[in-house]
């Protein structure tokens, strides 16, 4: 069997490879062109942020600045309290991430490993929640938060995102692969469900927790609509709200593209660095959530 099939396979290997020797450079060329287009806005941002005012509006355009300057950053920091907005964004993102890790894992564990009445109804609820667009809830949420006096508070920014359906779904998928025998053995030894969850299951799903942390933190860091609505006091703005308010107010930005590029640079750079460092988790997470 192997003897008969090996011959044609060898021939076949030659066939496509012969084609590929032409196709492969073409693939590289196409991908490189695509990559150039994809990275052009980032490069443009990175270069423009360090240009002087005169080179920003020079005609013909200056592609590489003759002198790199930090003036844009200094001017921006004079006008915007970026460290404050940075802290607001970090605090909200950390709180959202921690609460998601705990609450989503709890429900994920229950859905994956506990046999209880109503489990399928709750899972249906989670799947339904995945499909509901966030914009549907904005108006009553604003009224609710006003009533609770949580506008301009961290609680108001965190609570609506404290337990996302995506997290529950992700954790359930991962926890299903834990063998039941392991949990049964612990139960036989008299371990409580909480002990099993916290001491046995959670350590086993560390990779999933890492994925969930990254996605939740990033989602919160990039979130715009709700922080825009839930904050009136500029002291409580998150970074995107501060930048958007600055960029859309003609009096503030004064048409200074240099300052805006400096602002965008400061928001985007940490995200890009973290992404490149942890890129494996991103693609795996998306694939897992999408495929199962």
């Amino acid at each position, binding site marked *: 069997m192997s003897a008969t099939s090996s011959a*044609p396979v060898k021939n*076949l290997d030659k066939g*496509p490879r012969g*084609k590929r020797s032409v*196709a492969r450079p073409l*693939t*590289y060329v196409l*991908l490189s062109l*695509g990559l150039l287009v994809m990275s052009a*806005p980032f490069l*443009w*941002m990175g270069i423009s942020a360090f240009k002087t005012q005169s080179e*920003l*509006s020079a005609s013909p*355009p200056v592609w590489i600045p003759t002198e790199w300057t930090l003036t844009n950053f200094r001017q921006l920091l004079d006008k915007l309290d970026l460290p404050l907005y940075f802290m607001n964004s970090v605090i909200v993102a950390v709180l959202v991430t921690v609460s998601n890790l705990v*609450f*989503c894992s*709890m429900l994920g564990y*229950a859905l994956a490993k506990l*046999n*209880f009445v109503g*489990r*399928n109804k*709750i*899972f*249906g609820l989670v799947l339904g929640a995945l499909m*509901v*667009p966030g*914009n*549907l*809830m*904005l*108006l*009553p*949420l*604003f*009224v609710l938060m006003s*009533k609770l006096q949580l506008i301009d508070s961290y609680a108001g920014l965190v*609570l*609506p995102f404290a*337990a996302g359906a995506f997290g529950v779904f992700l954790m359930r998928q991962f926890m299903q692969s834990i063998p039941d025998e392991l949990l049964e053995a612990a139960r036989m030894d008299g371990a409580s*469900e909480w002990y099993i969850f916290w001491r046995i299951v959670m350590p086993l799903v560390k990779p999933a927790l890492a994925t969930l942390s990254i996605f939740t933190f990033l989602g919160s860091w*990039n979130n*715009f*609509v709700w922080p825009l*609505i839930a904050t009136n006091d500029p002291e409580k703005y998150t970074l*995107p709200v501060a930048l*958007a308010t600055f*960029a*859309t107010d003609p009096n503030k930005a004064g048409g200074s593209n240099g300052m805006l*590029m400096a602002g*965008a640079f400061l*928001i*985007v750079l940490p995200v890009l660095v973290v*992404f490149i460092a942890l*890129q494996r988790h*991103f693609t795996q997470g*998306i*694939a897992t959530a*999408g495929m199962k």
Partner: protein
Amino acid sequence: MSTSTTTTEKAARPAKAGAGASAAPAPGGGRRKRTLGMQNAAGWLFSTPFLVLFAVFMAFPILATLAMSFTDFGLRNVTRPWEAEFIGFENYVELFGDEKFLKSLFNTGYFVVVGVPLTIGIGLVVAVLLNNGIDRARTFFRVGFYAPVVTTIVAVAVVWRFVLDPSDGLIAGLFSEVGWTAPDFLGSEALAMPSLIVMAVWRNVGTVMVLFIAGLQAIPTEVREAAKLDGASVWQEFRSITIPLLRPTVLYATVITTIGYLNVFEEPFVMTQGGPSDSTLTVSLNMYREGFNFFHMGYASAMAYVLFVVIMGITVLQLRLLKDNTK
């Protein structure tokens, strides 16, 4: 979302079987009954935090939006919600005579109808290129194409506004190098929406690419080899093997991209503020303005529900269309 329905069905079946099985031997097995009772209590305790947050910050607002859409809810009702007056379907009737709303509905449709196929198509092409014969630099390319997805949309919209700037922008600079004059992309009624679409495709193509790469890698190599044995060309292999086997992925990618694009908000908010002359006013932006700038919250709630119904309708339609084709 196809995945979600199939998973519920899958989850529902064994559970029913389990319930039937546990009902039968119940009189005999005392220990089993006790653990089941404990699992019931534990299951509900573990579910409580999510359920409470879900009830207060999701279920209640979803119903409240519906209730508000039948009232004249305004600024004064933010402090006294119960005093809003019931006005029946008045908001909905008004919506469909409101030219601004109809325009925002059209604009959102334009964004979706052009944007989704472009995103899916380009994402598929990039995924296929990355999956065929590229070993070196594969991660490099993948990271590059995915990077826009993770970046803050507000920051990216600010950058794109400058990229498209008619006097000092990147495109204007490139045009001037070859002696052309760049049009005022965001200031032109005809070009503003296509510009936003290009930006959205740029930002979202990475998500679709990652989904397709996972889908492509799930196709068994034996299937491809069998096709090659039968003398299939690269194109034939793509048409008859790759595309049909990728159908579930195409479905999933189309549904999530469509839902995302139907909600488009940040891009027009930052880049055009809905202009020029409402040519980039989307339903979400329109709703935000009516609700939070003018505090016509009842009216805005009706908008939110119309959009929600449209989203549900299109999602169900897509599931039907793309699923039936596989059978």
